[in-house]
Every structure is written in structure tokens, then in C-alpha cells.
């Protein structure tokens, strides 16, 4: 384990010299296209320091519909169509509905892939076998300590991402997503239909809509992280919150702003973490600020500390 960490450090160090060749960017594009183009059924494992969870993912490419079923832990099923994400929770008989405000937003566009080179050194490493497929390793090494690194393993033939490790500054994986079984093709619309569709469960619609959160902003932006969207939505049963999303093209950090009076309880000020996700909570101007992001604790905290409210002048 120790020697592997050292090895990884050496690989990362030597990779700096040949970073960002057109070939490495081509690999990122190939991965991106594969996730858009392929229909498949796969079993994959999510692992962080505290737990391991197995899920099944089914994608029907012609309709751009994906279904995720979590096989252990809290039972849940998430179905994403082009414009909606529905999360079915059998335990509480609730369906959470989230309409996508900007349907094109999450797509990583080719020009954004080139822009990633501003914050990450991107290089190719060795090939590895994952779920029976030969995979090319692509390493994204952050240029500062404000973002995690990534090791991505893509099927040499199809470009499909078979494994993604989120790596901290010490080169250790904080989170792994890995296919243990992957079968491309032969997916019918039936296979991505929600199992719990049509049941009379309570529907919690987030009612997300683009909005200008008057007065709210960051005193200073975190280097590389720019505001990509700003909206109003409902959280949980019906708490109104504002949400601002900041991203460097690969990592994203959300700032949730909610009036203290609508919170069921007062959350403690401080940092909580789970795998690659860090959550920092604090109060600003009678509002609870919850910052959630797949970024190192320092980034999430700095964004949280920069949140400010300036009474709009008019």
C-alpha cells in the first residue's frame, strides 16, 4: 500500500512533463461520447473510507434515459430522463422530483474539456483490466490544493468509463466508483421504467426555477470556481431554498441558502464529510448556509466563509 502510494506519486510527478497532449484530451472526449452514445446494463460499486455500496445502472441511449437502483443500504431507485430526475424512496413512500433547469448544463462540452487543463495536469498512465476489459488510465492531477485529483479508467475499445477514483492531495483515493460487470447494448425502454411508477406515493417536487438571489453572493470567488447557475427550489418536504452552483469544469460546489425559520432544526456550524463530499454549514444574516461539494474541505469552507448578504440598494 505504501509503495503503491509512492509509485502513484512518482507517476504523477513524471506525468507533469507530458501533460495535456492532444491524445489525453482526446481520451476525455472519447469517454464523454461513450457515456452519451452507449446503451448498457452494469453493476457498479461505490466505495469510500466508511462504506461500500453496490448499484445497478441501466442506460437506454435512444431515449437518453438512465436508471440507477441501489442494491444495499437505503433502498432507492433514481430515474433520469432528459429533463427530469425522479428519486423513488420505498421506505418513506416518497418520490422526489427534480426538473432540470438548464437541460444542457451538465454536459461536459469539448471546449470545456480543453479548459480543464487550466486547473489540472492531464496525462495518460498504464492500462489496466477492469470488469474483464482493458482500460486506459487517464490521470487528472490538480494544480493546487483546492480540488481533488482523478484517476479515470476507460475501456480501450468503447471509451466507456469503467472506474473513477477521486484522489486527495496525498494521492490516496477518497472515493471509488467502479463497474464490476458491464454489458453494452440490448436495452429496451421497459428496462429503464421505474419499478414504482404509478404508485400513490407522496410527490416532493423541487420546483426548481432559475432565479436571481438578490443580495447574495461571494465576497471573493475561489480560484478556478465560477458561478454556473443560480436558482430557487424546494428542499425536503417544501423548504424554500436558494442554490448557487460554482464549478471549475469538473468539480462542483453548491451553496444552499435557506431562511432559519423554515429549518426544522438548527444545524451546527462546521464541517462534515462523506467520501469526496464535504459539507460546511454556517449562519449568515438569519439564513442557514449549507455548502456541499465534491471538493477538499478547504475549498468548501472557503466558499462558505465567503458567502455574504448585501442588502440590495434601491
Amino acid at each position, binding site marked *: 500500500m505504501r509503495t503503491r502510494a509512492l509509485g502513484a506519486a512518482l507517476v504523477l510527478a513524471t506525468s507533469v512533463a507530458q501533460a495535456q497532449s492532444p491524445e489525453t484530451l482526446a481520451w476525455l472526449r472519447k469517454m464523454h461520447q461513450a457515456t452519451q452514445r452507449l446503451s448498457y446494463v452494469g453493476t457498479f460499486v461505490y466505495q469510500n473510507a466508511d462504506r461500500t455500496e453496490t448499484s445497478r445502472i441501466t442506460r437506454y441511449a435512444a431515449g437518453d434515459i*438512465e436508471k440507477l437502483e441501489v442494491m444495499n443500504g437505503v433502498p432507492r431507485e433514481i430515474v433520469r430522463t432528459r429533463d427530469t430526475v425522479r428519486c423513488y424512496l420505498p421506505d418513506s413512500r416518497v418520490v422526489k422530483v427534480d426538473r432540470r433547469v438548464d437541460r444542457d448544463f451538465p454536459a461536459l462540452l469539448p471546449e*470545456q474539456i480543453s479548459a480543464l487543463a487550466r486547473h489540472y495536469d492531464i496525462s495518460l498512465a498504464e492500462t489496466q483490466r477492469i470488469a474483464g476489459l482493458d482500460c486506459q488510465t487517464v490521470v487528472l492531477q490538480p494544480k*493546487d490544493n483546492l480540488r481533488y485529483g482523478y484517476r479515470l479508467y476507460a475501456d480501450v475499445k468503447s471509451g466507456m468509463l469503467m472506474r473513477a477514483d477521486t484522489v486527495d492531495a496525498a*494521492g490516496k483515493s477518497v472515493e471509488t466508483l467502479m463497474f464490476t460487470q458491464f454489458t453494452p447494448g440490448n436495452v429496451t425502454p421497459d428496462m429503464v421504467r421505474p419499478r414504482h411508477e404509478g404508485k400513490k406515493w407522496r410527490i416532493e417536487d423541487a420546483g426548481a426555477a432559475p432565479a436571481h438571489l438578490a443580495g447574495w453572493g461571494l465576497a471573493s470567488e475561489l480560484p478556478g470556481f465560477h458561478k454556473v447557475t443560480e436558482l430557487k427550489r424546494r*428542499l425536503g418536504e417544501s423548504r424554500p431554498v436558494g442554490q448557487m452552483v460554482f464549478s471549475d469544469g*469538473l468539480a462542483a460546489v453548491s451553496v444552499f441558502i435557506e431562511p432559519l425559520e423554515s429549518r426544522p432544526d438548527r444545524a451546527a456550524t*462546521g464541517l*462534515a464529510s462523506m*467520501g469526496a463530499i464535504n459539507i460546511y454549514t454556517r449562519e449568515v444574516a438569519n439564513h442557514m448556509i*449549507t455548502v456541499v461539494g465534491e471538493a477538499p474541505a478547504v475549498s468548501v469552507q472557503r466558499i462558505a466563509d465567503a458567502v455574504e448578504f448585501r442588502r440590495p440598494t434601491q
Partner: protein
Amino acid sequence: MKDRISVLMDGELDDRSAAQAIDALAAGSQAGSQAGSEARDAWRTYHLISDALGKSRMLSEGFGERVAAALAAEPTVLAPRRLGGAREPRRWAALAAGVAAVSLVGWLGFAPQQPAVQVAKAPTPVVPKEAKPAVVALPSGTNDYLLAHQAFSPRMSLVGMAPYVRTVSEPAREARR
């Protein structure tokens, strides 16, 4: 010697004792040194234990965070000690111990902000000016925040829907809400 190796791994040995322990470890790689091979065995065993712990699910809730908080209060723990006037091989060994300490922190799911990797290149370090934050439990309704956040994560397009598996196992709380 075993005790010393353990303390060395924790980075709590004073310079002189650390130098002795490291010398013993170095001697262990040559045949014929009883103390040296004992030291090396201990070194391997203790790291095996820490690795095994890393794979187990038996850590109590928040263990990583508590350790992280304790480490945050003592930031020097993460950095390899400077051994004044140390000979060349000794410094290498100390560096290796430093890397091991960082890795040990790594498996706890904590991201130390002193990257060992960046030693190799010219970094643009961003030093947090804030005080180290209090470590708290995940806020109630964490899954709602995660669901709302993940819809906007650009990584989604690389990993498909995979980030949606990130939820908190809190069936009791979820059912009650």
C-alpha cells in the same frame, strides 16, 4: 524496538531516537542484524494492521473526522521531521516515514492539505487562512442536499449517473421525515 517503531510511525519519537530507529530499520535490509530484522518486521506488521483497518468497516462513526480534527490541531504531524545534519540514507528513510504517515491519514478519508506529491514540482500552494473548522455530524436531510447538488455536477457526464449513489445511510431518519 517494536515500541519505538510504533511511536516512530506515529511521528512522536524525538530526533535522536528516531534516528536510531531508522538506522535499525536500515540495518534490517542487510543480513545478520537481529535488532534490524525485528524492527523491519514490526514496521511491516504495523502497516499491515493499518491497511487492514482501512479495509474494515469497524471504525466507529465519525472516527475519521475525530482523528482529522486532532491532526488539524497539530498540523506538524503531517510533515516529515527535519533531522538536522542527518546522513543521506537517513533522510530518505525519514521521507518514507513521512509519506507513510500521510498515507495513513489518507485511508481515514481525510484530505490533508499538505500534498506529498507536490514536492516533486513547483506548486502554487494555497494556504487556508481560516481557523480549522469544527467537525460536525452530517446535517439532517443531507440526502436532499446531495440530490439537489448532484443534478448540477459536471462530472455527471463523465460518470453517467454514478454520483447519485452518494447518499447517507440513515433509514430511520429518512423514514421519519
